[in-house]
C-alpha cells in the first residue's frame, strides 16, 4: 500500500466511521434514560384488607391492575385487553371482565370466553413485601397459554 492508497482508505474509513458513529449516537439518543411513568412495582396494602371473592379495583386507575382475592390466596390481573390493548371493565353483576372497545369478555380468573380476543388476560407477579404488604410487579407477566399461571409468583398463597 502506497501513500496515496493509504490516504484514500483512511479518508473513506473516517467518513463512514463518522456516519456510523453519528447514526448510533442519534439512535441511542432516542432511547430515554428517565421515564416519568409509574414505577413498575407497587404495594397494594395488607392481605387482611381484602375480602374473599372480591375483585379489587383500587389500583386500576393508577396501575391498570385488578387484585383478586380467592379462598386460597391472591392473583393480580393486568387490566389490558389482550385483543387490542383497551381497558376492560369489571362487571360484578355478570361476574365478568368486559372490554368496551370490541366486546371481549373474560371470566373472573382471566380466561377469555367471548368477543374477538384470542387469549386470556395476563397475570402479574404478586408476592409479599418485607413489611407484610402485597407487592405487585407489572414488569413480570405470566401468560396462561404458556402454562405460566402455575409458577410460584403468579399466585400468592394466603388463607388467613
Amino acid at each position, binding site marked *: 500500500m502506497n501513500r496515496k492508497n493509504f490516504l484514500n482508505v483512511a479518508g473513506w474509513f473516517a467518513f463512514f466511521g463518522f456516519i456510523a458513529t453519528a447514526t448510533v449516537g442519534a*439512535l441511542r439518543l*432516542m*432511547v*430515554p434514560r428517565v*421515564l*416519568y*411513568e409509574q414505577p413498575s412495582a407497587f404495594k397494594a396494602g395488607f392481605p387482611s384488607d381484602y375480602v374473599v371473592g372480591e375483585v379489587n379495583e383500587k389500583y386500576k386507575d393508577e396501575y391498570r391492575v385488578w387484585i383478586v382475592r380467592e379462598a386460597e390466596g391472591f392473583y393480580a390481573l393486568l387490566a389490558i385487553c389482550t385483543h*387490542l*390493548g*383497551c381497558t376492560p371493565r369489571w362487571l360484578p353483576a355478570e361476574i365478568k371482565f368486559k372490554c368496551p*372497545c370490541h366486546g371481549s369478555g373474560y371470566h373472573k380468573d382471566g380466561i377469555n370466553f367471548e368477543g374477538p380476543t384470542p387469549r386470556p388476560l395476563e397475570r402479574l407477579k404478586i408476592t409479599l413485601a418485607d413489611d407484610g404488604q402485597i407487592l405487585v410487579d407489572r*414488569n413480570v407477566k405470566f401468560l396462561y397459554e404458556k402454562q405460566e399461571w402455575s409458577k410460584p409468583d403468579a399466585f400468592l398463597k394466603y388463607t388467613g
Partner: protein
Amino acid sequence: MLGLFDTMREKMQQTEVYKSIFRHTYQDTQRNRALQILDNVFLHLHPVRITRHATNIGFTWGMGGITFLLFIVLTITGVILMFYYRPAAEYAYDDMKYLMNDVAFGPLMRNMHRWAAHAMVITVMLHMFRVFLTGSYKPPRQFNWVVGVFLLTLTLFLSFTGYLLPWDQLAIWAVTVGTNMARATPFLGHEGPFGAELGMRIDNDVRFVLLGGTQVGPPTLLRFYVLHCIFLPLIGAVLMAVHFWRIRKDGGISGPDVTSKKA
C-alpha cells in the same frame, strides 16, 4: 388604459432586477419555451414537453397531481395550525379546542387539514391502483414504483402520527392500539419472533423508542409531533422530488401503448 399597462410591463421587463431573475423572454419559439422550463427550479422537475396523451385524464386520472396538490394544502394548513398548537400534554387538547372555537378561521384550517389528509390517503391509493392497472410500474419505471411505495408508507405514517395530536380519548387509544403492533416486530419487538432471544424488553424495544416510554404518554405526543411536522414531511419532500424527476428520466408520463395497435 391597456396600452399604459403594456408599456409598464415592457418597462419592467427591461429593468436590471427583472432580467436578473427571469433569464428568458416570452418569445414563442420552441427553444425559448424549453429554456423557460429548464431555468426555473420549480418547473424543471417537470418535462419540457409532454406527449399529447399525457393530458388525457381518462388515462392518468390525474391522481398523482391531485395527491401533490393535497400535500401542498396540508403543508400550508398544517403550518397555520402550528401557530396555535403546543405539543405538550397539558396544552394540546385545549389548544385544539381553542382552534375549533375561538380562533378566526381556525375550524376551517383544521377541517381542511383533516379532510385533505383523508383525501390524500385515498388519492395515493387510487394513484397506485391506476399505475398498476396501466402497467406503469414495468421497466424502465421499476425504481419509481419503489419510491412510490416509500411515499405511500410515509403518507400512512403522516396520517397515523397526526391522529394522536388532538390528544383526546380517541387519539390516545387509537395510537395505543396501533403501536401495540410494534410489539410483534421481528427481532426488534419484545413480543416478536426472536425478540426475547435478543434481549428485547418492554423498556428497550422498537415500540419503546417510538413512544418514548412504555405506554402512550406526553413523550409520545412530542415525538409524534416532531415526526408529523418535521421529519416525515422532509423525507417526503425529498422523495417527491426524486419521484417527479424520475418520471421525466424514465421517458415521461406513461401513456397508451400506441405501437401495438393503430389508433
